[in-house]
């Protein structure tokens, strides 16, 4: 005399999977948020160690510079080429190509693509390093010595990443623009004089680009460090932590990109014209 279930079996399984994914996400976000709050606390009350921060800046910034600039250079050429070809289908002249490209770079592409590269390189690096420390019990040794790993390990990476993401974005964005300029001249015979056009960039666009830099620069080290700190097990765990770091940081970059772009357009869309 069993009652017929309210929800059929396959539907229940789908709902179960969705619920599990939702719970898992909530748990990850809230425990990463804990790391973030502790990092902010130690920023104010923690140890002062400019040396560690400088080392991390070198590790995160200088050592990513070539990789990020190289990729962004290629991206600049491809985007100008694809954009130019498509624009030619609807508009007779390409005089706005340079200005529009710069606008897109400032508002979105330079910060977001640079951050995706940093999420891969730096995020994987942080998680692998902290994950190895976690599975070899070096973090426990730190805690035994009354040193919070967040203060010793996460804080310098956080500060370095926030600062260096601005630098990387500006440098690699410039490289992308320069490569796009060369591309425009080669493919569409646009003179550099008409390509370099700042007329479409305004304070709102610049502001939303810089806000993205700040948000990505903060999210990447926190999520990656969180993945590394929570690694448990053997060599399997380090690999799993690295994977989680890359996936979480990349997803965070894409989600923040959407949120900030949407917010900026909804709030300031009317003023920017």
């Amino acid at each position, binding site marked *: 005399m069993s009652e017929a279930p309210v929800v059929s079996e396959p539907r229940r399984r789908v709902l179960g999977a969705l619920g599990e994914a939702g719970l898992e996400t909530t748990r990850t976000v809230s425990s990463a948020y804990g790391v973030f709050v502790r990092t902010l606390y130690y920023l104010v009350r923690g140890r002062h160690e400019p040396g560690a921060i400088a080392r991390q800046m070198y590790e995160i910034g200088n050592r990513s510079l070539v990789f990020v600039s190289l990729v962004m250079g290629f991206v600049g050429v491809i985007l100008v080429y694809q954009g130019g070809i498509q624009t030619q289908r609807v508009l007779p002249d390409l005089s706005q190509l340079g200005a529009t490209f710069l606008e897109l770079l400032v508002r979105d592409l330079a910060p977001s693509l640079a951050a995706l590269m940093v999420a891969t390189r730096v995020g994987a690096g942080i998680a*692998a390093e902290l994950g190895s420390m976690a599975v070899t019990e070096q973090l426990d040794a730190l805690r035994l010595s009354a040193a919070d790993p967040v203060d010793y390990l996460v804080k310098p990476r956080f500060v370095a990443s926030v600062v260096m993401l601005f630098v990387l974005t500006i440098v690699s964005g410039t490289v992308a623009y320069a490569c796009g300029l060369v591309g425009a001249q080669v493919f569409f015979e646009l003179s550099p004089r008409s390509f370099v056009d700042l007329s479409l960039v305004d304070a709102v666009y610049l502001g939303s680009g810089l806000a993205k830099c700040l948000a990505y620069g903060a999210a990447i080290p926190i999520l990656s460090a969180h993945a590394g700190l929570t690694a448990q097990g053997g060599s399997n765990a380090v690999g799993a932590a690295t994977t989680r770091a890359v996936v979480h940081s990349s997803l965070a970059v894409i989600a923040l990109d959407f949120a900030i772009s949407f917010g900026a357009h909804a709030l300031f869309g009317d003023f920017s014209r």
Partner: protein
Amino acid sequence: MLDAESGALEQARSASEAPLRLAGRLALLLAAIARAVADGELDRRMLVKSLYETGVRSLPIVVLTALFTGGIMVVQAAPIVERYGAHGLLGWGAGFGTLREIGPLLTALMISGRVGANNTAELGTMVVTEQLDALRALAIDPVGFLVAPRFLAIVTTLLLATLFADALALVGAAYVGAALLGVDPTVFYSGLTSGLLGFGDVAHGLVKSLVFGGVIASSSCHYGLTTTGGAPGVGRSVNAAVVVSAAGVFLCDFFVSFLIA
């Protein structure tokens, strides 16, 4: 003086050799995989398992990425569309960007992060714990048993995921366009299908995704198989694999864009 000079030369030489060396190793790995498949040494059961692991289990990430991508494309196209008052062209603008570049690229980066990194970590762990040697001792070819199924699974996954992500991103873009710009989704879809975009644009993206899949799969297998040095070694391998995959994806994007244009 002379020593310093020859030291610098030596350093420059080894730095310029490294990418070539890597390309050579990847080519050898590809040849080994092709030979294993041609000889019928591909393990079918492992292939199905890999397809499930890489394909089905990546779906949530692909769905999330695609919906956000569509939204981002519209938000970025919005000021340009409003400037020209060309709301009918919104579908075209978001469409060509998604189909030709952003869809394949972002899907590849996410798959590289989830599947490629995971693959390196798994193979690397097997190498450090000498499980590959155990396979060889049992006369099982590790390439046919482990590497070839993973390679094929990653390439297939990325191709299908890109097709799926293209469609989802455009649906996401249509509704974000409706919410943000008040462009009716039907106007958006007619902008997509009005003749400015064709199957060529979809195919352009799919060819790219095949190449990206090959890059991600071969580099992640290569770094997994050459892991040394315990748990930190696995971390280093994963790190190297994701960096090489990401750089390789963008470089190939550049060359494929021109080759098939």
